[in-house]
């Protein structure tokens, strides 16, 4: 019986049979989801329209603005990395874990990044914020103590059209400090 639980027992698209729909199983913010999806379904549309988590935004839909940024675990070894979910097929994260902005707060407590954006006025209209925070988290997981220059470099893939970059950088600096001091990551 336990053999059935192994990865190989799962239905998979193989060379023998190119498929029109594909089964995907993804853990998003700790919750397992499984669906049959069209292969062309983009990850951002899966997250928003199928799973119903609309915190992840679609801005430009052309890999520029970063509003759709989420973290994925299992793409590069075991670390969480930031990706633009408008430029991934849902099937590319099959069997992996995804973290969206909704998954950051724990037990009603905001994540230090969310708190820092609030306290430092790191947003105006807020449209870019979910992506901005997820990118910042991707950066801080790799580099917990970035210089101001490294923060700027880390968020080049995220556009804010309210021209709020100064406060965004300040927010990330403040969050990095709190995360280091309290040993918080995700």
């Amino acid at each position: 019986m336990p053999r059935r639980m192994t990865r190989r027992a799962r239905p998979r698209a193989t060379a023998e049979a190119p498929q029109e729909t594909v089964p995907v199983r993804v853990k998003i913010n700790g919750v397992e989801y499984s669906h049959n999806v069209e292969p062309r379904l983009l990850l951002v549309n899966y997250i928003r329209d199928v799973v119903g988590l609309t915190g992840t935004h679609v801005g430009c839909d052309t890999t520029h603005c970063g509003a759709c940024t989420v973290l994925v675990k299992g793409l590069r070894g075991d670390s969480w990395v930031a990706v633009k979910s408008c430029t991934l097929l849902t099937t590319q994260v099959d069997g992996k874990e995804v973290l969206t902005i909704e998954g950051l707060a724990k037990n009603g407590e905001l994540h230090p990044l969310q708190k820092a954006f609030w306290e430092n006025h790191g947003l105006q209209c807020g449209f870019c914020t979910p992506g901005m925070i997820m990118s910042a988290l991707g950066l801080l997981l790799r580099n917990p103590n970035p210089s101001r220059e490294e923060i700027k470099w880390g968020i080049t893939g995220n556009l804010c059209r309210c021209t709020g970059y100064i406060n965004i950088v300040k927010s990330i600096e403040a969050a990095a400090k709190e995360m280091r001091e309290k040993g918080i990551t995700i």
Partner: protein
Amino acid sequence: MYPRKFSYVAPNRVEEVLTLLRKYRDEAKLLAGGHSLLPMMKLRIIGPRLVIDLKNLRDRLAYIRDGARVVRIGALTTHADIELSRTLMRDIPLLPETARWIGDMQVRNMGTVGGSLAHSDPAGDWPVAMLALDASVTIQGARKRTIPLSRFLKGPFTTALKPTEILTEIVVPKPPKGHGWSWKKFERRAGDFATVNVAAIVVPDGRGRVKNVSIAIGSVNPTPYRAVNAERILRGKRPDAGLLDKAAEMAAEKAQPSSDLRGSAEYKKWLTRVMVRRALEEALSRAGITLEMTQHA
């Protein structure tokens, strides 16, 4: 924006990929990181019937292997893998620096070096850096072959890859210890494609002169090119400012840029000269070669 409908398959072995390519040929596309392919599919520039996702081959084709004379890089290695590689920072620092300037952090986490080379965008960064390093590529089809990158890049979005072949590895010779290098990418705004991108490697002879030099230039021709004439006049010399100007001028001669949103052809040609000059200065300085002071009469 959705791509056109397609069938999808994610094989577990390279042989399965080849079987599918032989069956579908031009109607199939290989998905590596997808950061050139998916945007093109979303914009409906292309609409493959079959997408062959290579995600299950990462265990086999994503690696950076340190050899005695070369570093072997698996085709599915991401830009981020290269950016953060200690082996490459130590032995071929041009490569992590090239990676650092590609797209943005999120793009670098997905995009792959093999995908970029096989895509052969005239403004791509990897073709330029790899050309300066005299890299070769290994291609798997009915048989396996390794060819120099200069013969692999055929034109805009065109390579020596047959529809039934897959790029599996990039073989990069290590430049000698103590070499100088430079990566100069001019971009209008952070994360943009290059207006012009230049890679330079300078090998010193230990007596203050240039033993060997390579200069590769991208974005201003249908394919990146080596500035062979400029390289020739620098070899064996301890350059002065005048010789650098001359080399930069010669390097830009072959540029045939087109006017577009990134600038006029005239501007880009001038920019090529400027960026080559800056790349040479930086690479020479890193190689420990100081410029000959010219006497002014």
